[in-house]
């Protein structure tokens, strides 16, 4: 287990020609599968640290591969999707995918997503009680929030929202996940709650709420707490 093993389930050779070298030069081992069936069987036999999964596969929907993997493994899965696949993307995330990339994407973006996902696995083993990045500090144990050393008071809902984002720091949190975690199951349709409270969080914590640096919007999907 010296080098993490990454399984790439992708059928487009031109994309593979770019994916495989960019991943392997960063010290990861790479395995590739071109179909859903092959992807599932290789995930079972090799148990990779991370799966890059394209949603459009020739033999089956990428979502079936995802739910198959999720039936026995909690290891990170990053979805690769085309534009205009917002719904599938959101469904994959709600089904337990960890993050997504939208084609076309660059190598830097790809490697950043892989890093965050693998780091998150490591964090799960020993959860960090404090998030500290770019001047935003959230102490989950003491329930304290500060920006550049200045303490900020949040309402309970604002804090719960922030907490939910911090626990996914660097990864995307879908609207459904946030709504159900903050307002409880059954509030998934009330996305206007989310808009209002995100605006309040930004107003209290961002230097310029018009150009958020911490709370990034993932259009059509959800939000991401910037951890880079």
């Amino acid at each position, binding site marked *: 287990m010296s080098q993490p093993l990454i399984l790439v389930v992708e059928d487009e050779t031109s994309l593979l020609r770019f994916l495989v070298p960019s991943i392997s030069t960063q010290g990861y081992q790479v395995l590739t599968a071109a179909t859903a069936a092959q992807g599932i069987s290789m995930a079972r036999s090799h148990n990779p640290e991370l799966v890059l999964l394209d949603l459009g596969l020739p033999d089956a929907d990428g979502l079936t591969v995802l739910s198959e993997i999720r039936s026995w493994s909690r290891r990170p899965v990053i979805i690769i999707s085309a534009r205009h696949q*917002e719904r599938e993307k959101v469904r994959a995330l709600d089904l337990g995918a960890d993050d997504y990339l939208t084609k*076309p994407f660059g190598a830097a973006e790809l490697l950043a997503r892989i890093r965050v996902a693998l780091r998150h696995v490591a964090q799960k083993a020993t959860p960090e009680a404090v998030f500290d990045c770019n001047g935003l500090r959230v102490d989950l144990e003491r329930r304290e929030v500060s920006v550049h050393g200045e303490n900020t008071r949040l309402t*309970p809902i604002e804090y719960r929202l922030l907490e939910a984002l911090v626990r996914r720091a660097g990864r995307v949190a879908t609207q459904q996940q946030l709504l159900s975690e903050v307002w409880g199951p059954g509030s998934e349709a009330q996305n206007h709650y989310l808009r209002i409270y995100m*605006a309040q969080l930004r107003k209290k914590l961002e230097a310029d*709420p018009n150009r958020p640096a911490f709370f*990034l919007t993932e*259009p059509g999907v959800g939000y991401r707490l910037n951890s880079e």
Partner: protein
Amino acid sequence: MTQPEHSNPLLLALGSDAQAVRLIHAAFWAAREKHRPWIALHVHVPSEEAADEQDQARLWLEEAQSLGAATLWIQARTRVAGLLEAVKQTGAGEIMMGWGQDRWPWGRLGHSTAQELLRRQPAIRITSIPLGPEIPRHSVFPPKTERLGALFGSLGILGACAGLGAILPPELPLPAIFLLFLLATALIAQRWGLGAGALAVAASGLIFDLAFDSAQGSLTVGNWPMLALFLVVLGGGQFAVALSERLNQQTRASRRRAALQAALLLLGRNLAKGTTHREVAEALNHLGERLLHRSIHLLLLQKDGHWKPLLPPGPELEFAIPTFLPNAQREALEPHLDGTHAYLPLGHGGALEGVLCITAHHYNDLDEEAWELLRGFAVQVALALERVRWLDTAQRAKLENETERMRSALLGAISHDLRTPLAGIQGAASTLLLSESIPESTRRDLLAMIHGESQRLTQLVTNLLDLTRLESGAIRVQKEWHSLQEVLGSALRRTESQKTQVEIDLPENLPLVAADGALLEQLLINLLENASRHAPGCPVALRAWTTASTLEIKVADQGPGIPDAYRTRVFDKFFRLPGRGQDGGVGLGLAICDAIAKAHGGTICAESNPGGGACFHVSLPREDPPPLPPAAEEMAP
């Protein structure tokens, strides 16, 4: 016969009767099909033709003329002589004429005339158009009720006479009663015809003999001279009635003929105005109501074999879908009777294309004149439909031209915009592949160029796809509640690389708007990119506010601005302001903005910016957002 086919005119021999309409119709189609001129001819034989027939023949020639025929009027001693004279004058190689059972006269030449003609001019080709038999006058719809009515009516009248005779003072002489019966039988004969009259005579004789003759109650033949007188007087009366009736008929016929001509003229004028099938149908229906007091409907035969009525059915617009199967054998203009409706098929080049459906509640007054008028209508309608078809074709051709022009402009723009970055990428990549000793700085430059150009290509393809999907309706606007600030933040992040300074003026507590987040973001991105492209280095001002029913956004730059003449055209696909050269845009960004604004039920327009530069004003409809969640637990922790 040495003349080339196309210049060789077609000669159409016309008579004076109504069947000429069919001949004109047939010749019109034949001439059109063969692209040949045609000449309508009438041979006037003075000894055989009455004045009104001449008038009628002239009318038919005029009709033919209105359909593009040249006309010829030849006076001759015999038909054959006239026809030969016409052939000589026109150099025609082919004569079309009607052929039918009736003796009557010009439209329908018997075999003998054709044979005579061929014998004397063997080079001529004769095309005979079969004309069906005349429409039977009354036999089609036997007036059953009429017969019963005649019987009961006659009996009633005679009974009344007998009753009157019985109550008359007995001093009155028998001849008085006799005259009474005479009057009654004359009345019956005039009302119900000669047959009824004759029966009435017999019946009156019997009654008179039984009831009023000297030996009352017994049947005698003693009064036979009286009976004979009865018959003679009745016969004379009938003769007079018949004479006046014939005179009446002739007057009526000539009046009706005049009416028919006027009606056809009227219809022709009305149909000439129609440019659509519906207008043709309306003109026909209108005239049918006015002239025939019945509803005439135009039904067109669809390609799938169904009949399509051209006017919506209503209480006054009645029709029935024909039950007969549309087959090619059905002769055009041959009426078909079916239940409570009559149909006149309309042909086009031998194929059935539609029918006139005529309501016929009182069949017995749809007589030969009415049918003639209807047939005239049918011919006119068929021609009007043909005209509509040509108009349609012309219209479609024009539209196709336009589309083709658009398409080629589009293709030109796309291929140019696709090729330019591809050429760059190809060149840079081949340089990298070929030479091994490229200095590191050059290598990086080339790679940066490949990266940049491929991004531009991606942008172009994405824009094209977006626009296509928006315009084809493949993208459905999925409205959700959004904060403009958030959408704008996301748009700013995606346009960060352009390093444009954006001054934002959003009011505090701008309400949420129901919009498609991705599309709204795209709209803002396109406006920001547009501004930074046309006014590089200048700050862009973005201002938003709400009214009671709208969200208003203005994006203003300080670039060269948009000339007034192009204010609306800047939203056209692939439109680029002339004289701005290659600025990296492909002319799709604003077209996408326009499509997005419209998809939201809003508008976008280019306004003049008081401070110079361009200003785009977006206005989207807005509603009040739903209430917030209960704030009971919203206390400070």
